[in-house]
């Protein structure tokens, strides 16, 4: 089974702090994704990566950056956290592009005070 793990289930940070969310997948997948989930809005894509050191902006990249130094690890960075970034963050991976099944981690619930 594909396993996608995220470094924290719950995180509380203060406004202005730099925040790192880590995601690791164990199936040698090429593609990795970061989403945020908010009530009534479904999942919105922040960034994705289709190869090591490659990244593409999703629908809502403002205020975020990403890093993919190794194939199995994809990090989401909030350079200066703000209260409107309080949300559930979900990481996913897939083997192929073009609509392949994505496998999700359990999520990190981030609260910014």
């Amino acid at each position, binding site marked *: 089974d594909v396993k996608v793990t995220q470094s924290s289930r719950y995180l509380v940070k203060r406004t202005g702090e730099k925040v790192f969310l880590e995601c690791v997948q164990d199936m040698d997948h090429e*593609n990795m994704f970061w989403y945020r989930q908010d009530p009534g809005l*479904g*999942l919105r894509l922040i960034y994705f990566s289709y190869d090591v050191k490659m990244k593409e902006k999703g629908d809502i990249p403002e205020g975020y950056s990403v890093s993919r130094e190794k194939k199995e690890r994809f990090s989401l960075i909030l350079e200066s956290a703000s209260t409107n970034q309080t949300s559930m963050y979900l990481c996913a991976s897939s083997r192929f592009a073009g609509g392949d099944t994505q496998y999700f981690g359990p999520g990190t619930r981030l609260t910014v005070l």
Partner: protein
Amino acid sequence: AQSVTQLDSHVSVSEGTPVLLRCNYSSSYSPSLFWYVQHPNKGLQLLLKYTSAATLVKGINGFEAEFKKSETSFHLTKPSAHMSDAAEYFCVVSGLYNQGGKLIFGQGTELSVKP
């Protein structure tokens, strides 16, 4: 452009009765379509996937969905609801290939199951 609309934000059924969660999609080509389920405080789990083979797709836990191109619909059904089916369900359509495997999510339908 691809888009997906879940027609109900909340559905409530009694245990043992049928479940119908409605989804319409818009796509400029033949898409892949998915249903994912999210139980409270858990990540998303794939229920089923349509990829232009059989139009009736069977998934896990007794769920199935029918692809109807003429109606641009992909409704999720189950003959008999179980308490453990209470969760949030997402209908998803694949983005264009040059979007790097992007999936487009509906807003979600919360399913409640009453004893």
